[in-house]
């Protein structure tokens, strides 16, 4: 291959964008986040309270809120899968990598990772 200039087209996120990277997690089947109780609750009645592992002013939100209230029977398999994803939005300055291991250890969590570092291709 011809050697091109040492560059890869990409437009990074501007440094002053104030856009945070969340921790993204997928719940195990049968679990959901109860916003009133601020806790993860299973169909069997188990409960996981996440506040102790997170900094103050963290927010926990469904990744796709519009699916949260939908009738399960009307959802496609992909939508039912998508409904299990949750974002943990940390306060400004808190790196998501610091909290991934703790979140991954919650008994309700199937997988967790820091949100992707996004740019334009």
């Amino acid at each position, binding site marked *: *291959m*011809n050697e*091109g*200039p040492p560059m*890869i*087209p*990409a*437009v990074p*996120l*501007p440094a*002053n*964008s*104030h*856009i*945070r*990277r*969340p921790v*993204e997690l*997928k719940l195990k089947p049968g679990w959901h986040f109860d916003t009133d109780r601020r806790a993860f609750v299973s169909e069997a009645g188990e409960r996981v309270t996440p506040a102790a592992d997170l900094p103050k002013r963290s*927010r926990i*939100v469904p*990744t*796709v*809120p*519009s*699916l949260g209230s939908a009738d399960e029977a009307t959802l*496609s398999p*992909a*939508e039912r*899968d*998508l409904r299990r*994803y949750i*974002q943990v*939005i940390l306060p400004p300055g808190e790196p998501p990598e610091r909290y991934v291991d703790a979140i991954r250890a919650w008994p309700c969590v199937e*997988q967790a*990772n820091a*949100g*992707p*570092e*996004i*740019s*334009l*291709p």
Partner: protein
Amino acid sequence: MPDKGTIAGIGRETDEGYVGTDFEAPDVPDYVVAELRYEAPVAFTASRFTAPAEAAPQADRLNDVLARFDIKRIRSQFGLRPSTVRSRVEVAAVLPPEPSPARFADRGVDTDFIHSGFVQVIPERGRDARPIAEALDRNDAVWKAYVAPRPVPAAVVNGSAAGSRNFEPAQGYLHAPPDGIGAAEVWSLPGAKGMGVTICDIEGNWNRSHEDLPTGIPLLGGTVIPDLGWRNHGTAVLGEVVSIPDAKGTVGISHEAKGAVHSAVVNGVFNTAAAITNAAAALSAGDVILIELQATGPNGKYVAMQYWNDIFSAIVAATTNGITVVEAAGNGNENFELAVFAGTGLQKDSGAIVVGAGIPPTNHFDNDNAYASIGVPRSRIWFSNHGKIVNVQAWGWHVTTLGYGDAQGGRSQNRWYTLRFSGTSSASPIVTGAVACIQGRSKAKTGAPLAPSQVRKILMATGTPQVAGPGVPVTQRIGPLPNLPKAMRKI
């Protein structure tokens, strides 16, 4: 010009549109761009215009202009090889006045020929640029000559006070296969300009006030990222698909489709899955979602967004509902077949049409003085990701569209144009436009859109095949370049 508001990093919104305020002019000397008429059998060397004996007076008149000034250099605006420039003479000599490129494609009026007529005349003194342009503009062999506009917003007024130029001749991706996707060839078919189709672009910012975009492109949701780079990017993407067909600017591949946008920033964080799901909820079967994003993968290289499971599921959900999702493969020079990607979305079918970047016919770098090829047309460009999930390719370099201002600058960003949009970013909208043309045609012909899987199958089966280049075998798969004339026969 009253201000309507200020956006940090972008500029002021005024009655003239967005006026940039806070970036510096590059140190670029003024030069002239002369566009030779298609039918003028004139070529050029580094110092003068040339022509065969029967057309020598035309070249002589151009050289008379040059003789009145100190000329530093003459070169191809598109960096074409001297042999390519010389070969235009033979094609031009047999053309009638003001020929239609599509009509004369079989006589050598291809992308190289069209681009070979763009000549940079660089004077020793920048102040000579304007009189040179004016003198060349009066010449019979020249369709238009002008001082190359600078991508500079403030202080320098240039480019478009009397109306923007027509950049359609530089949109080689519209041209007939194998150079382009053959969009212009199919537009005469009912519905094939994307009629009845809505395209939603998911990224972060757009100049929806651009003069060459239809009014009223809605922001379906999300928070716009106030950054000029992101703004130019989104504007360029929209221009490829829905810019207005008129005598100025560019023409979108699917210019009868409706545009829409959704920011990937939701609740102050990137949430591409929510953006896809929300956009899909606002669209109908037959519509198109374009994912113009990439992110850093496990090897530290950029990968396609469907690597992340929530995004993969969101794409599956959208395509299940009949919405075609087009997704940039990303610019990481990454091989999606590596073991590290086993079991991830980079080795599974999400239903999306994943787009790689190929080398266009105008395959050179914009180096100062030397022609430097980037490789063989339709081979994988060095930065494009590749793998089995990459379905089709399109131009990843030198895409003419809206924004940036290197082709036409000026005070208002609403009149900015570029000749150099690139990456899987520039490739993906070309495929998106092709999808909208196919769905519009299907609706007009059969009353219903095709399933996303059918659209993908047609594009892959009818496209102009990927080719190998030095160091980039076809096993580094990016797929074929769409061929719309062939694709339309499958509907």
